[in-house]
Structures are given as C-alpha cells and as structure tokens.
C-alpha cells in the first residue's frame, strides 16, 4: 500500500512541478511589464531585466503631467463600463424572462433572430454604426460608447439558461397568488438569479473595459476617451519613454485584474454553468 501512496505523491509532485514552466510563460508578460515600468531608462537601453532600483517616476508622470490624462481616462472607462453592465443586466433579464417563462406568437423565430445576432461579426456593422452615430451628432460622447452595447445575445442566453432551472410551479404559484409578471420577475426571479447576474455583470464590465475598436472610432477628446485608447496612444507618443508606456499598461490592467480577482469565483462559475450545458 505504501508503494501506491508513494507513487501517488510522486505523480502529484510531478504534476505540481510541471506547472512551474507553464506558470512562468503565462505570467512572464505581466512580470516583465512591471519590471520595466520601474526601471530607470538607461537600464532599459542596456537590456537589463532586473532593475537596480525602483523608480516610480513613470507612474507619477502618467498621473500628473498635463500631457497625459490617465485619471480622466480611468473615469471615462468606469462610467462606460458600469453603464453598459447595468444596461445589459436589465435588457437581457427582461428578454430572457420572456423566452423562459412566457408564451407568445413568433417566439421561436424571435429566438432564432437572437441566435442570428451572434453570427454577425462586429465588423459587418461597425462602419454603418459609425455613420449612424455621427449623423446623430453623438460623436465624442458617452452615449455613443454606451447605447450600442446595451444588450447582447450572450447575456440573453446566459440568463435564459439560468431561468430555465427554476421550476415551473414557481411561476404558476406566483400567478395564483395574483402576482403579475413584472412583479414575479422583480421579486422572485431576479434575486434567485443573482449569481448568474453577477457573472454576467462582471463579464460585461470586463469586456467593455477592454473594448478598443469602437472607442477608437467614436471618441476624440480626452473627456470621453477610454483607458485602452489612452495607453495605445502612449506608443505614438514617445517610444523612448518605454518605461512610461509600461507604467501605463500596469495602470490600465489593475482595475480589470482587481475585478477579476474579486469576482473570480462568481465569474467562473457563471461562465461554466453556461458552458456545461453547451
């Protein structure tokens, strides 16, 4: 018996050790970015990997110099991401509710239509959306960043999947109690689906925080520019200030990484629940 346990422990050890190179590969970009961001510039040009001293100038510059507007960009991204997140939570819950609990004509076709939206790649609509938005005078505004993303097929699927796990009797019981649909939804369905809503919210927030192409097209001034566009412009600015560029990356990653770490369990469970059903 001890031979078996020993072998089991050995395989466990081997398993654990195998992770090390993989972890290094996955984490290397982040670690490197951090190291460069605190390295004095001449050491960067001398191709050193470990800084001799920690130099926080780049971070100070990024936040305080008038030529850079990081706090504003972060603010903008927060506003946009939060609004889109809340918006999707609302519209997707409503639509998912209809598909999961109600019966109506054309239900099958409307559902197929939602499915179809997943087929259309963003590029097929981005040009026309851009023209629409600019015709409405929405260029360089929060509306342009928020409104087109107020719903998503993924959100509707996720929530519908979740609602389908609630028993039919629940709805029938509520109706017998004289509870109409909106109230049923608001007071029973929504609280019950909180984990799924949380997962959806985190996922949507992250995706919106990370958006690039659309904000690139529709924002012009730092009043509305989001954080991804902000750091990408640092490259145009001054390739010599490589350290500043890396500091910018760190600044931009910290919020989304924090949300990820904070909401990890919910996010993963929510996404997994959607995946296992296929």
């Amino acid at each position: 018996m001890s031979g078996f346990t020993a072998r089991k422990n050995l395989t466990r050890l081997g398993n654990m050790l195998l992770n090390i190179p993989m972890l290094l590969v996955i984490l290397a970009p982040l670690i490197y970015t951090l190291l460069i961001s605190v390295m004095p510039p001449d050491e960067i040009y001398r191709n050193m990997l470990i800084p001799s001293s920690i130099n926080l100038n780049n971070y100070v510059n990024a936040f305080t110099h008038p030529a850079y507007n990081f706090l504003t960009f972060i603010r903008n991204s927060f506003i946009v991401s939060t609004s889109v997140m809340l918006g999707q939570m609302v519209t997707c819950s409503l639509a998912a509710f209809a598909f999961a609990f109600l019966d109506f004509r054309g239900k099958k076709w409307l559902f197929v239509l939602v499915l179809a939206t997943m087929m259309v790649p963003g590029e097929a609509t981005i040009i026309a959306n851009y023209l629409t938005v600019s015709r409405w005078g929405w260029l360089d505004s929060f509306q342009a960043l928020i409104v087109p993303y107020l719903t998503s097929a993924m959100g509707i699927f996720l929530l519908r999947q979740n609602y389908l796990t609630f028993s039919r009797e629940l709805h029938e019981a509520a109706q017998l109690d004289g509870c109409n649909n909106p109230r049923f939804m608001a007071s029973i369905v929504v609280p019950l689906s909180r984990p799924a809503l949380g997962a959806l919210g985190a996922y949507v927030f992250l995706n919106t925080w990370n958006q690039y192409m659309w904000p690139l097209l529709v924002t012009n001034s730092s009043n509305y520019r989001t954080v991804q566009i902000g750091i990408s412009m640092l490259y145009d600015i001054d390739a010599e200030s490589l350290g500043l560029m890396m500091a910018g990356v760190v600044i931009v990653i910290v919020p989304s990484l924090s949300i990820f770490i904070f909401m990890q369990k919910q996010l993963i469970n929510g996404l997994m629940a959607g995946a296992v059903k296929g």
Partner: protein
Amino acid sequence: MSLTDSLKARTTKPRVPGKRGIYAVMEPYLFLLPAFVVFGLFLFYPFGRTIFLSTFLTDKLGNARVFWGVRNYTDLFTSSSFWASVGVTFQFVAIVAFGGLLIGLATSLLTAKKYPGVTFASASYAMPVAIASAAASMAFRMILHPTNGLLNILFGTQINWTGDPRWALFSVSMLTIWLASGINFIFISAGLRGVPDEMYESASIDGAGYWRRLFSITLPSISPTLFFQIIINIIGAFQSFSQIRLLTQGGPGDATNVIVYAIYRDAFFNFRFGTAAARSIILFAIVLVITLIQFSFEKRSVHY
C-alpha cells in the same frame, strides 16, 4: 431535447381567466422590446446599410456618391492583396483557435488534481481573461522590441518580431493565443470537472496509463466542450483588431493584413466606405459558412 421542445416545455399559460386582454398579449413583446430596439438599431439596420453601401463608391467624407454595383466585390476578388489578406486571416485563425485550445487543455490538465498551490495556478491560468487586448499589445510591443525587448534578450537574437515577414504573423498569433488561453482554461476546466469519476475508475482497473486514459476517455468525454471552445476561438480570432493595429499595422507588406484590419484601413484611413463595406459582407459570409460547416461536423463527431 430539441430547441423547440425546450421552448415549449418551459412556458406556462396564464391561468387566470379573462386576463387574455390586449395587455397580456402584448406583454411578452414589451419584455423583449428593449433588447430588440438595441438589436434593431445597432445590428439589423447597420447590417442592411452595409450591404447597401457596398454597392457604392463614397466621397472623401464617406457619403455614397457613385453607384458601383458589384464592382466593389469584383475589384476585391481580382486583387492579389485581398486574397493575401484572406490567406493571412485563415492562417491566423487556425493558429489561434487550435493554439488557444491546446494551451487551455494543457493548463486544465495541469490543474485537474489538487496539490499545494493549485488555486494560485488556476487563477493565473485564467487571468488573461481580464487583460485587454490593447494593454497586452502594448506590453508585447516591449517584449517584441527588436533591440531592447525581452524575447531578443532571452534568446540572444536580433529578430525583428513585428517587422520581419517571417515572424510578424507568428508574433501576433502568439499574443492572441496568450490572450485566449484564459477563457479556454475556464471552459475546458469546467468540462473536465463534468466528467464522471466512474469513467476513470473502470479504466484504471484495466491498467490503462495516463496517456491512454487521456485519449480514450477524457478527450472524447469533453468533446462537446472542445467543440464549443473552438467556435468561440474562431469567432474571436476573426475579430482580433487591436493587436494588428498596434503591433504591425497589417504589415510588413500584407503579412498580417487580416480582413478586419483591411476593413478598418479602407474605411477609416482611405475613406473608401464602399470597398470596406464589401469586405465586411465577405467576412460575414466566411464566418457564416465556417460556423455552418462546424455544426454539421458536430453532428457527426461529437460524443454525448
């Protein structure tokens, strides 16, 4: 259970008599309204508009000016640059879709059992999900820097990772695989967890080794997950934009000029919205065909 069945089974008819008034009939549509308004304005309408635009030549401000019929399409189909772009896109998508899947599979297998530090490892493997492609591109700009970047320092080489046509596509693909590895890890791990233990027990009684178990039991059991994940990877790869724009701008030559970037270039740099719209429609058709092929493939090879 088919889609229709599942839809039918979940509905409840209102029991209270006399409630079949106008409101009750309209109610479901009201629930759907917000979502469908957004879809209508920002998905269905623009899609139609794009088709319309693709038959025109536009002026320097983007207004449709000269009716051009199918010429935008034929011009594209006869342009070597367009086909180069299609070829590059397919290569890119293939590398990324399978590469991401492989890494996700590897990291999932590595964290399938418990050991000290497995939580940290799992969190790290999932982490790329939280990193924006633009931020990662900037970080990789430094990593791939020809004279002062990490890769050249580590390998002692002087390769211009983004300027050398032999390496440009590879570099951009590696970055995209890194980004995709997070979501691949999450979903495949979930899939692995769903495999019932009994399946393994019978195999180890038979004396089957690790690799045998992997290929005969694990992989077939998670094939729906793998299949689903490949589609996600493919769709995501088709939409990759910021990496190209920030690292290579479609170059060198056409080495990384994926369709999505060519669309952006045509529309927002050359201001030829007609041609760009034509490219978009072609891209849509390609994605549609691929997805349809995959679904028919699924029916045949995925095990439940």
